[in-house]
């Protein structure tokens, strides 16, 4: 987590399902019932920063206020889809900061298999990103949908690849500046 990095701050605000293990008086505001209590067993989506804070007890194995679940974006269904064909999944629709969210989740849950699936996804999609970025005519056909579905990390990757390729074409005289 980087203090001044806006993407890091936005990742912190992404939600994940939390289940309250204890009854908490007066915290109903989280459910949209100000003044009410929160009952044990209540399941609410909370922002990462809050869920993480409330679950600290759970991770230390002492009293646990809430337990965390995998967010929908990293559910088994999504992992299976990524294993089948990473290129067709719209990551942006799942979470705008899909990979940043994954990093944070992987710090909380020990999921080595998920690391492998995500690494493989990232590599395969990166190759596709490079192909589009080096295409001087811009996105065409299926490419448009694929590029729309890039998460924030991937968009930055696309930009890096695209800018350098363009600069290269300008230097070699294949394209004009601006």
């Amino acid at each position, binding site marked *: *987590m*980087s*203090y*001044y990095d806006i993407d890091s701050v936005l990742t912190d605000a992404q939600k994940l399902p939390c289940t309250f293990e204890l009854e908490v008086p007066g915290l109903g505001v989280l459910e949209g019932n100000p003044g009410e209590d929160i009952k044990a067993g209540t399941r609410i989506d909370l922002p990462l920063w809050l869920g993480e804070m409330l679950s600290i007890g759970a991770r230390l194995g002492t009293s646990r206020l809430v337990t965390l679940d995998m967010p929908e974006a990293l559910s088994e269904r999504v992992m299976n889809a990524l294993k089948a064909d990473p290129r067709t999944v719209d990551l942006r629709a799942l979470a705008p900061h899909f990979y940043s969210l994954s990093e944070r989740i992987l710090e909380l849950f020990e999921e080595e298999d998920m690391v492998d699936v995500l690494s493989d996804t990232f590599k395969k999609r990166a190759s596709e990103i490079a192909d589009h970025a080096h295409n001087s005519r811009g996105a065409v056909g299926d490419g448009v949908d694929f590029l729309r579905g890039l998460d924030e990390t991937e968009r930055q990757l696309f930009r890096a690849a695209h800018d350098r390729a363009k600069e290269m074409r300008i230097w070699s005289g294949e394209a004009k500046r601006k």
Partner: protein
Amino acid sequence: MDIDDILASVDRGAGASPESTALDHQQLTRFWVAERAVSEVLPWPAPLMERVMDRVRMQIETIEDLASSSGDTGTPTNATHNPNLNLRLSILQTDLARTQYIIRSLLRQRLAKLTKHSMHYLVQLASRSKSPFSQSQSQSQSQNPNMMPEDSVPDISAVDNVSPLSEQESSFVHAHQTLLAGHYGGSFMGSFPRTLRRLDDNAGGTSMVQGPETKEVVFARCLGVEVPVFVGGEDGEEEVGVTMRMGDVWVVRWEGVRRAWERGEVELL
């Protein structure tokens, strides 16, 4: 060789052989590429930069002298004496401009890193301070009811060793951060509660002081016979990963080859 040349070569002083000019130029170029390649500020090569700056100053004088002699080319004797004057001038000026470009790009790159991670470098320098005052300063200040953001800018006035910065850079970064903190204080932080006005806060497990990422990868060429890549960047860590061989080019983490770079056995591309 005529008498002017002999005098000129004496003026250059001891050790200013042509080989060392070329070598310094190569070192400067290599250092510039490296500085552009990594996210941290590299140790300032003070003696090298002094020699290069001296030569730049002398070269500017040489060019001015030569240019003023072209002012009286009206006389035919001068024109025949100096048939290539304009060509020589344009070569010298191009050479000068190229060197100045490297120096300027190098300095601007360093300033960009310094301003991006200003608190990181100030905290790093202040931790070496021998003055007991500046070390206890932060505690005494948290009690200060008039605490302002400027007060959390570390005092580096008693620090002798400003590496990796140059003297000028260390005073720049301190002045810069003080101005910035003053601006934050004046425009919004001043109206925060006293305890929220620091710029080096650690609350919530996220430090406000952000340093460069040394785990980023670089493109490196192995110049020594064999160079092992270290697993971690921490001092004293001896665990070794892959080994690069002479002439190899690798994509590796900067922290894994930093020490080999310091020894001159690796260059960054």
